[in-house]
């Protein structure tokens, strides 16, 4: 018996070592860092332990702003992108001709580099000496006045940010939902048709419950993904997100470690733990809310 046990652990050893070194140890280290006050990379010493790091981070205006930005992005983009993806998937599965062509078009953003997409958005929105950007040209056409979407007012920047985020997460959601819709058996619809069910009732009573596990999966991963937003912001507003007022929580953590104001691993760790707590809480709420609504 004993020997068998050892053997089992032996087989697990490579994975355990790998996970231990690259996952468990850093995780524990982050927690330790977050409680060490005044830790410096250079001296490898701290001045003491306590909750000062959390206090500092929570009172830092940049962090509060990052928190607010992140929440706005999450609250707007997750429902909008999921809803939009559902609408597009429904439309895609109800057409026969050109379906593949449309599917490819909708999937393109997924295989396009973030920075390349950022460039495209620049062409659309950025004001330069030569042009106001294509969107502003459209606004002009309808008699509006120019808006500086990249360096202008906060709402304009947030609008571009959310649009960008929705557009970039849409393809994956469409892909998942079209396949989920395709997996609903045709017989259910036939049975509903013979019974004279209205399209809206078919959607709410049959289609939606049948694909609810997939929608739930998309909402959960969507929330987590949106909370971790950073690279998309950089693609649009450059690396100095704090001065652009568009920083996110992950961006704040990064800046604390490596940015202009870098070199504060303790603050970065504290912020990272706060982010973890937020994501964890939201996911738990999601799980509880959806428990009675999901039909596996």
């Amino acid at each position: 018996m004993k020997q068998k046990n050892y053997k089992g652990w032996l087989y697990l050893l490579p994975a355990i070592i790998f996970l231990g070194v690259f996952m468990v140890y850093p995780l524990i280290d982050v927690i330790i860092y977050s409680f060490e006050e005044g830790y410096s990379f250079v001296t490898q010493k701290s001045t003491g332990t306590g909750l000062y790091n959390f206090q500092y981070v929570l009172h830092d205006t940049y962090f509060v702003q990052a928190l607010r930005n992140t929440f706005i992005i999450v609250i707007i983009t997750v429902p909008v992108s999921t809803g939009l993806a559902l609408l597009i998937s429904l439309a895609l599965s109800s057409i026969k001709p050109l379906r593949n062509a449309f599917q490819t078009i909708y999937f393109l953003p997924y295989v396009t580099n973030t920075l390349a997409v950022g460039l495209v958005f620049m062409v659309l929105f950025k004001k330069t000496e030569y042009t106001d950007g294509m969107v502003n040209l459209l606004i002009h056409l309808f008699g509006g006045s120019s808006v500086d979407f990249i360096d202008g007012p906060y709402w304009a920047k947030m609008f571009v940010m959310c649009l960008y985020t929705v557009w970039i997460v849409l393809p994956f959601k469409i892909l998942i939902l079209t396949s989920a819709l395709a997996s609903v058996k045709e017989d259910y619809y036939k049975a509903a048709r013979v019974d004279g069910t209205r399209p809206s009732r078919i959607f709410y009573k049959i289609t939606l419950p049948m694909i609810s596990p997939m929608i739930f999966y998309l909402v959960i991963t969507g929330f987590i993904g949106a909370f971790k937003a950073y690279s998309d912001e950089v693609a649009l507003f450059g690396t100095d997100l704090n001065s652009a007022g568009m920083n996110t929580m992950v961006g704040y953590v990064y800046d604390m470690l490596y940015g202009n104001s870098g070199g504060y691993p303790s603050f970065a760790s504290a912020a990272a733990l706060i982010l973890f707590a937020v994501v964890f809480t939201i996911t738990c709420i999601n799980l509880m809310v959806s428990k009675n609504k999901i039909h596996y």
Partner: protein
Amino acid sequence: MKITLEHLTKRFPNRNKKIKEDVIAASDLTFEIPDGKLIGLLGPSGCGKSTTLNLISGLETPTEGRIYFGDNDVTDVPPENRGVGLVFQNYALYPHLTVEDNIAFPLGNLRGKDKLTKEQMHERALEAAKLVQIDTLMERKPNELSGGQQQRVAIARALVKMPSVLLLDEPLSNLDARLRLQTREELSRIQHETGITTIFVTHDQEEAMSISDMIVVMKEGVIHQIGKPQEVYDHPDNLFVAKFLGTPPINVFEGSVKDGKVYIGDEAILDAPEGASAPADNASAASGRKVYVGIRPEGFIPDKNGPLSVTLNKIEVMGRDTSIVAEHPAFIGTTIRSIIPSEDLTDVSGPTVRFRVKPGKVHLFDRETEKTI
């Protein structure tokens, strides 16, 4: 309600685009289904029986021909307005709804003056559930039910809106053998209690024969014979119908009709019926008219002086019956199978066994047209 099909034809474009010809799933179907009867649409898979059912339900629209419910032409009426209840082969129960919600689902579609209150829906659902004896399972989900129970829920859901026609697509094929026997009796009982004109599709001839008031035998989209099960069995119109009905299947021999006698090989087994011989001016008259001789397994009587001799293969004892498996050079297929009631069995031993045949169990078919003579 009486259902009348008139020259009903359904063509599908060929899936293989290189082939220009359409696939004909149903070809020129014309028959009448009397009110309140249980009808079995019978045929091998791919014979168009499910298509016929879908045409009647309205899920498919015919390429040509008309469908009448009573005196009303319903050909262009959408399925929801035809008043049909449809039970699918895999039942198509909504997995996320309870049995009660499943049964009540069609009632929730009613609008306007037909709209029902929650209590009325519950009452109607319970009524339908009682009819199929699942009223104690109303709170369960479909995946908590056995196959037979799911089948009943599906039937209750089809019955709850009080359809004038009930259509069942292979209703018993997903059940195990014992349950199938039980459920087919149940089906027959429900049909008799409700008096709803019922059409069911099956590839199992035993199933169709046992409960139908009338069977329709189809092959490749064409109706081969319509009639009461026993009539069709006793008087098949052609070789296909004869072969398709009955287990074990009919034994078919190559034979001929000569001088008023039916020959298998050199042995005259039976007097030929009137008009079975070829016309006198026919060139083949001298050698006799070439026919297929079909003999039902129960048509053999062991007789030491019988006219038909076969080579004994083996004897299978099955309690009530004994089946004698044998070979004959003129036989089409591998082995001849005859069923003899065990108490009638005198001692049979090889290598050659001789039989008499019962005239009513022998059918003659023209070699070329395969039609019954």
